[in-house]
């Protein structure tokens, strides 16, 4: 288990974090959003109060810009993997945090956030240029019931020194009543917030974390609400005072497109923090925001697990809901087993997720880190008439796109950007790559030419085998 502060130190150690000193004349979440758009590093906003904010910790570079980009590498680091872990390694690791990940005995440790009580406004959470109140993002809500502790992502606002208005999944709301205590944890270990997102997007928020793999990974501590990670940076203990306040944020965190959520008004009873807390924030509603990336990866992990257990074999190489497309489209790399398999695969994905109604299928040898190739194959391998397949217009509208918000039905689309399995091997055009287009001795000469040069380009790995 990696505590959040250790995770942030690790990012700094990898030269993937830039420190900015206050005062911040530009809203912090605008700075965070611009850094993400520019494929920048994690930002640490250092403030004289000693309460720092960090952005971009769960997101990563824009894959449409960087050849070597692996936008999941930061989260991989946070979950104890190597930063160059494959997407599939990460998806499988995420899956082990949830209910399918076994039922280990929880471990308990002392609460790190044991500092003197402070006012929730003292946290100085970021306030966007057009926001009325400071925003709570990337929070984990914890509620205790007779079954155990339940976690869910929480997103909301600080509307006063002792009042929060938040949105949580309806499944969590259903577990509380007026007067129920709820704890909001900010700056939890990456494994913990990933679990909260995973439970939300799989609509398993009512499953107690004692039945999830995360309990074998993250040491816990009891609070008035429920168990939270002992290494949490800020613990806000609250009481539910209104289950139906008139509140709706203009922006929605990524998970709010997946599950039905509702508002709660919370009375803040106590705020405890570590000595020098570090709080993650997400520029919600902006491109590539952390909450979008977390939602996309948690959803991809779920889909990957489900489709690969569907046929008795595992033909799917990877699944991705890229943050670059704000979760409105699903890419899947798969062995196309037989003619028509691509139709089955697309429709299973539609069945398992309501986020998107467009699926793109690429060949199984297309690596996810080579997203540029994915974005090329869409138009190169798919015939404009034969490989763009639309359903009858009687499908429910997906939740993420902007069109068809009036509950009308419409069509779904899958794009078959993989070779047709009925083609003879001789029909398959070989790819032009450094590996394919030159024999070994010539490649050695080329490498030697550049490597002997001080001004030679940086070495990178060219990905992608050929067919």
């Amino acid at each position, binding site marked *: 288990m990696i505590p959040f502060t250790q995770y942030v130190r690790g990012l700094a150690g990898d030269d993937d974090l830039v420190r900015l000193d206050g005062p911040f004349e530009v809203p912090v979440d605008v700075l965070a959003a611009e850094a993400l758009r520019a494929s*920048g590093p994690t930002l640490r906003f250092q403030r004289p109060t000693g309460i720092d904010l960090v952005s971009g910790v769960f997101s990563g570079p*824009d894959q449409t810009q960087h050849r070597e980009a692996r936008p999941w590498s930061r989260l991989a680091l946070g979950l104890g993997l190597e930063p160059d872990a494959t997407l599939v390694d990460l998806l499988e690791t995420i899956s082990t945090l949830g209910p399918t990940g076994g039922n280990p005995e929880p471990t308990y440790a002392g609460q790190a956030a044991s500092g003197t009580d402070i006012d929730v406004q003292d946290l100085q959470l970021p306030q966007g240029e057009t926001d009325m109140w400071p925003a709570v993002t990337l929070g984990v809500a914890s509620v205790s019931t007779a079954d155990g502790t339940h976690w869910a992502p929480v997103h909301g606002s600080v509307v006063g020194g002792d009042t929060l208005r938040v949105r949580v999944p309806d499944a969590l709301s259903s577990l509380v009543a007026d007067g129920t205590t709820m704890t909001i944890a900010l700056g939890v270990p990456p494994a913990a917030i990933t679990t909260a997102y995973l439970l939300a997007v799989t609509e398993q928020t009512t499953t107690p974390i004692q039945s999830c793999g995360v309990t074998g990974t993250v040491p816990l501590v009891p609070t008035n609400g429920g168990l939270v990670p002992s290494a949490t940076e800020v613990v806000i203990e609250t009481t539910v005072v209104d289950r139906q306040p008139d509140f709706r944020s203009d922006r929605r965190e990524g998970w709010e497109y997946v599950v039905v959520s509702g508002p709660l008004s919370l009375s803040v009873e106590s705020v405890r923090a570590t000595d020098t807390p570090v709080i993650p924030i997400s520029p919600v509603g902006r491109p590539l925001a952390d909450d979008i990336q977390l939602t996309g990866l948690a959803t991809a992990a779920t889909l990957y697990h489900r489709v690969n257990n569907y046929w008795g074999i595992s033909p799917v190489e990877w699944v991705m809901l890229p943050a670059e497309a704000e979760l409105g*489209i699903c890419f899947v790399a798969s062995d196309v087993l037989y003619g028509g398999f691509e139709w089955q695969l697309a429709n299973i994905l539609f069945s398992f997720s309501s986020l998107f109604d467009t699926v793109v299928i690429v060949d199984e040898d297309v690596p996810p880190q080579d997203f*540029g190739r994915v974005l090329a194959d869409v138009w190169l391998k798919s015939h404009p008439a034969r490989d763009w397949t639309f359903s009858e217009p009687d499908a429910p509208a997906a939740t993420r796109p902007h*069109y068809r918000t009036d509950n009308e039905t419409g069509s779904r*689309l899958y794009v078959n950007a993989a070779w047709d399995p009925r083609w003879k091997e001789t029909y398959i055009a070989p790819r032009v790559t450094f590996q394919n287009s030159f024999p070994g001795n010539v490649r050695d000469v080329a490498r030697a030419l550049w490597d002997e040069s001080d*001004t030679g380009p940086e070495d990178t790995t060219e990905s992608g085998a050929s067919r």
Partner: protein
Amino acid sequence: MAVNSLREYLDLLDTTGWLRSFDQPVSWDLEASAATMLANIRDGPVPVFESIAGIETESKLVGDPYRGPQTRPWDHFAQALGFPSGLSGCTYYDRVIARLNRTKAPRTVASHRAPCKETVRTGTEVDLLSFPWPYIHEGDGGRYSNHHTIVAPDPDTEWGTWSSHRMMIHDSSQASLLLLAGEQVPNRYYYDYEPRGEPMPVAVVIGAEPTVESTADMWIPTGRSEAAFAGGLKNAPVDLVQCETNDLYVPATAELVLEGHVRPDDRLDEGPFGDYFGYMNGPRRSMPVFEVDAITHRHEPRLPFCVEGSGVGYGQNSTSTLRLVAAGPDATVGLRAAGFDVAMAVPWRFTSRTVWVIATDRPYPGYLHELANFIFTTWGMLHIDFFVFVDAAVDPLDPRAVLTTIALEADPDADFHQFGVERMPKVPLNIYQTPDEKGSADVGTSKAKTAKAYIDATTDGDATDTTATAETRKRAQERLVEAGLDAARFDRLDEREGKSQ
């Protein structure tokens, strides 16, 4: 001030650290192209191979000279036009469009004032094989010249028509030209010269100055002079000089000019070749024969070549870059001239010929259909399969923004529009065609017709990010640059003009 020759352009790259000369002998047989592909993949300097192994030649090979940086592919070319580095893509397009709207007629110079005539070879002195044409990919049908401008006769213009068609070298005086019917020069040959049994005079211009090289990639309307557009782009007339053995005029500062003619009713093998789609393209076809009558060149000619295929996906090469930096602005000019109020027309970054993104307003219902129909039946007929229309406020040079609009705004039920399903002509190069569909028809077009489509990814006017003002975003970007982030990645800092990256 724009540069006047390939050499001046290479010098410019050198001063900015984007050129790397290799003194050690490098073979034309795959080695030069392998080293170039590595640079293309790694976003490294442009390689110049000063010494060619195994051949006595004063020629030098230059690998993909017009490849731009992956983050700002237009940046090198902007400097070649005399613009500062660091322009945003939108500003670059605006400036180029302004130049293209002010065409300048070329001027002719005498032979003795034309650098491309420093050496003149005719008759028995003609020897194509004395030049180090590269063998570019293992599996290619032969050695190629694939980065040049072809000058052909045009009865409608004084200076002929310019285009680009790859050429496979066969022997000391013959090459096969990939002439695919449907394009202007091939049509002229197949439907005009060859039926009359007449040879068509042609000049292959290698290493022309940047504005000429880019103009050959543009979609200049018939009857208009590419030379004048090149002059507009350069903001100065392009110098032309008459050929030694025919009436054609060629750019005077070119490195090498092959004068000759295409023989009627004669064919030689051409291909397969690792093509701009990023895949090896076959089958081997019979293509018209280019017979070389004269060769003129500068001393120590620089022969640029393109490692086709490396400009797909993240990588850039010369042709993918030139499409983005020249064909895109030119198409924007053309669409506006046709009465369409488009903000920008830009090739999709990852497959620069198959898909274009067009940022436009929609002034009336049916506008996008009309616009797509116009393009498909004129410029985009053969190569382009898709247009993606986005709001005028969306930057079509930003692939993330375009991908997002496709995902969030293009309703599968209402926004995907196919044109004449499998009724439209197609060059036989796309890999989704089976070998049978590609065929080997006499005039080089595909046997199978194809479909074209457009995607309406425009909004109903309400999807732009309004959570921060443009000024706030700009101040944020300035703050981040102060903190050490790379300024080249920010789109709101046009004031950086004049500063080096």
